[in-house]
């Protein structure tokens, strides 16, 4: 009788563990914060890249169209990779691309733009990385698709052709 009991306990214990692993190991382990919590864009002010004037975020994302905020840096290699893709989005009239230059030297950033082209209608400076934190970013590169002061989609890491296609589908 006791043998049967232990057998049942042991088998149910192992099936329980098996089920947890079976479910858990199939899940992707890249963590993304849940989107529903707060997807309104943060309010902040930053220096602009060329004029060195303070710009308020409310004056940037105020129109009823799609915005793409791209956090980039000249020292970040994936940013170099994704740059042609962002350039390809530049022609789209429904989309305005804003750059956030993350912890960069001004000289290097200018060289980056001169070498690879400028897809941004406006570039803001984030010298100490605090503005990126306001956006809930992890590092560079990171891209946010914004409409009506809401973050619709967040891309952690460099954009790829699929994500560009996705962005084009959103703004269609």
């Amino acid at each position, binding site marked *: 009788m006791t043998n049967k009991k232990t057998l049942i306990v042991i088998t149910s214990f192992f099936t329980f563990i098996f089920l947890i692993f079976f479910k858990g190991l199939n899940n992707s382990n890249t*963590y993304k*914060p*849940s989107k529903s919590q707060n997807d309104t864009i943060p309010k902040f002010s930053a220096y602009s890249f060329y004029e060195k004037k303070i710009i308020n975020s409310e004056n940037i994302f105020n129109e009823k169209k799609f915005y793409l905020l791209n956090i980039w840096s000249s020292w970040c290699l994936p940013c170099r990779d994704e740059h042609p893709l962002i350039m390809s989005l530049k022609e789209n009239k429904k989309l305005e691309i804003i750059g956030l230059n993350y912890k960069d030297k001004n000289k290097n950033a200018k060289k980056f733009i001169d070498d690879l082209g400028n897809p941004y209608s406006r570039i803001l400076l984030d010298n*100490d*990385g*605090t503005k990126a*934190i306001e956006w809930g970013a992890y*590092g560079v590169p990171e891209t946010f698709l914004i409409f009506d002061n809401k973050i619709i989609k967040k891309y952690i890491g460099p954009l790829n052709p699929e994500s560009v296609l996705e962005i084009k589908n959103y703004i269609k």
Partner: protein
Amino acid sequence: MKILKIIIIFIIIFSSQNIKAEEKNLQNKITKNLRCLICQGQSVYDSDSEFAISLKLVVQNKINQGFSEKEIYNFLTDKYGEWILYEPKFNKNTYILWFLPLLIFLFGGAIVFKKFIKFK
């Protein structure tokens, strides 16, 4: 008169240092409870990654702006989700986490108790 001035200057210097130290303590306490999301197994306090450096700065700025510890945690969980806190909040998603050790402890205690009675 001169002595009085010197004393006043000393008082000002030391009192301001005291405030600075308290702020630093609070900053350290908060950053020790924050997970550095891009590092493995490190707190923001321990890490020197770009992300952690910026986050320390943000916490310091928030303290200077007069945010309380709880408000800073709320601000960061808003941006990054619950995962950034080492000590998870008590809610419907985490009650198993909080109670499981207690249950296991009671279960073990029950087994020991049963054995003990048998032994007697």
